[in-house]
């Protein structure tokens, strides 16, 4: 096993990098430079070990067996819930529902709370920078219920126009669903303001935390949001796991999402009594192995410290921004005052896809395209961008390589 990186003042990034075996691989004969962290982050050895230890040591179905393995697996699964609760500052463990990811969390709210509480003429407010996952479920719901979807516009820096949000709010507003951090632009939205304003008109608030959970310290009680959804795989954890937080008082009143095993207390053909929280929303055998390993990912983040991570990522963002701006004809899309370590850009007369292909040819992984936010791209009248997004293991040297790779690509394409 690899030694855990010692953390004192500042980050020992070289030691952290050693915890991520994938960072040693070559791509196209060159050392991998992974700058697609907003899509998914790489996994530390401790997460990989937790997965293999689970499958080689105590794999069993949970919450039912009385044998040793079942007890160990159940205990590990529930430890992940406690760690997740701490990670976002939830009050009680019943408020932590395991899902497949952010998308499923949002859909769960749309299909349960939404179906129960949204009626004809009601309004749901989202923003102009949402990921498709936080648009489509609400469109489906609005269509079904003859409700109205309203959109907070964004300005040319990629910030929400709060005056317009204030105007959209009314007693008809039943839900506000916004991203904490934009995956395409990096904008950190003023969610505290949004939550307070929405509550003032009696609306509930769902925060899409897919991008924020890895960069920012999250305290759902302080935010006072009603729902918060995020994905393990963007927080150094395995794919196929996510968390939906919901206030207990709200979760208790919601109808179940899916029916099946685990979510029931008693079943007769006449009637089923649902299980208590959070199991009521966790029908079927869950993704036990990945959920168990998810704890190792949260432990990793806690060990390094969100604050240290943020400081490091802010440094990378600042450096990358100033270096990229020295490239002629390069324009950064998303220049909000508050930004997470995501940087989206376009270069005049060059298609993002061409840049992406040529960067990949140099071992540099970036994302190109619309980033599942087509309405946002339409606002900026662009088909897409190149996006570099940084994680705790990225370095200044890698940004230099990105800039060099871009300069080389531009020369080839000119």
């Amino acid at each position, binding site marked *: 096993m690899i030694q855990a990186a010692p953390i004192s003042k500042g980050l020992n990034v070289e030691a952290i990098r050693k915890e991520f075996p994938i960072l040693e691989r070559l791509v*196209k004969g060159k050392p991998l430079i992974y700058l697609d962290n907003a899509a998914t982050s790489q996994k530390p050895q401790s997460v990989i070990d937790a997965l293999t230890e689970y499958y080689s040591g105590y794999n069993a179905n949970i919450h039912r067996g009385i044998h040793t393995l079942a007890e160990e697996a159940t205990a590990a699964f529930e430890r992940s819930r406690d760690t997740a609760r701490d990670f976002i500052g939830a009050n009680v463990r019943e408020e932590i529902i395991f899902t497949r990811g952010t998308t499923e969390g949002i859909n769960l709210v749309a299909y349960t709370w939404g179906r129960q509480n949204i009626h004809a003429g009601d309004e749901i407010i989202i923003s102009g920078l949402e990921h498709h996952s936080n648009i489509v479920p609400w469109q489906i719901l609005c269509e079904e219920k003859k409700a109205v979807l309203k959109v907070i516009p964004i300005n040319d820096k990629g910030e929400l126009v709060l005056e317009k949000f204030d105007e959209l709010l009314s007693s008809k507003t039943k839900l506000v669903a916004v991203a904490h951090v934009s995956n395409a632009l990096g904008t950190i939205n003023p969610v505290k303001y949004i939550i307070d304003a929405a509550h003032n008109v009696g609306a509930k608030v769902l925060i899409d935390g897919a991008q924020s959970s890895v960069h920012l310290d999250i305290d759902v009680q302080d935010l006072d949001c009603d729902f918060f959804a995020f994905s393990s795989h963007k927080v150094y954890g395995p794919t196929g796991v996510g968390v939906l937080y919901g206030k207990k008082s709200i979760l208790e009143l919601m109808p179940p999402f899916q029916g099946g095993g685990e979510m029931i207390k008693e079943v007769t053909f006449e009637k089923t009594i649902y299980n208590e929280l959070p199991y009521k929303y966790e029908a079927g055998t869950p993704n036990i192995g990945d959920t168990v390993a998810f704890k190792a990912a949260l432990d990793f983040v806690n060990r390094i410290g969100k604050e240290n991570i943020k400081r490091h990522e802010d440094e990378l963002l600042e450096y990358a921004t100033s270096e990229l701006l020295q490239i002629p004809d390069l324009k950064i899309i998303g220049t909000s005052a508050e930004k997470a370590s995501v940087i989206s850009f376009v270069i005049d007369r060059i298609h993002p*896809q*061409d840049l992406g*292909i040529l960067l990949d040819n140099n071992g540099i992984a970036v994302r190109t395209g619309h980033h599942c936010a087509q309405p946002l791209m339409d606002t900026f009248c662009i*088909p897409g961008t190149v996006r570099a997004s940084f994680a705790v293991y990225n370095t200044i040297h890698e940004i230099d390589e990105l800039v060099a790779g871009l300069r080389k690509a531009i020369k*080839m*394409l000119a």
Partner: protein
Amino acid sequence: MSENKSIQEIEADIIDEFSLFDSWDEKYEYIIDMGKKLPELDEKYKLDENKVKGCQSTVWLVAEMENGKIIFKADSDAVIVKGLISMLIRVLSNHTPDEIIEAKLEFIQKIGMTSHLAQTRSNGLLSMVKQMKNFALAYKLKQSLINN
């Protein structure tokens, strides 16, 4: 002239040309160069109905029949994709529908493009091939209807 070369012969030419390159950079420079040299498609063809689906970049493809042979014209807003289409046009254009339908297009793999382009992008490439073959099938059907 490529006019009287078979599809297989043109594919062999391309494979030969690529065998001269030592690095991926050189291959890409060549593809980019081909992309730049492909004549721009007339604006009147740049319609939604001529777009090839499944590509991250926009690709327009049109086909016309001339003396029993299909002539392809295409364009894209991304130059590497344009270079790839340019190769497909060089191989497939000016052949009969039957020849196009039968074409195995092994050169794509032999010059390393399928393995090299990531799944999403090579899907775009495959969509283009599929679209070209669909045109050939459609023309073949039309011919057989006329002949009967």
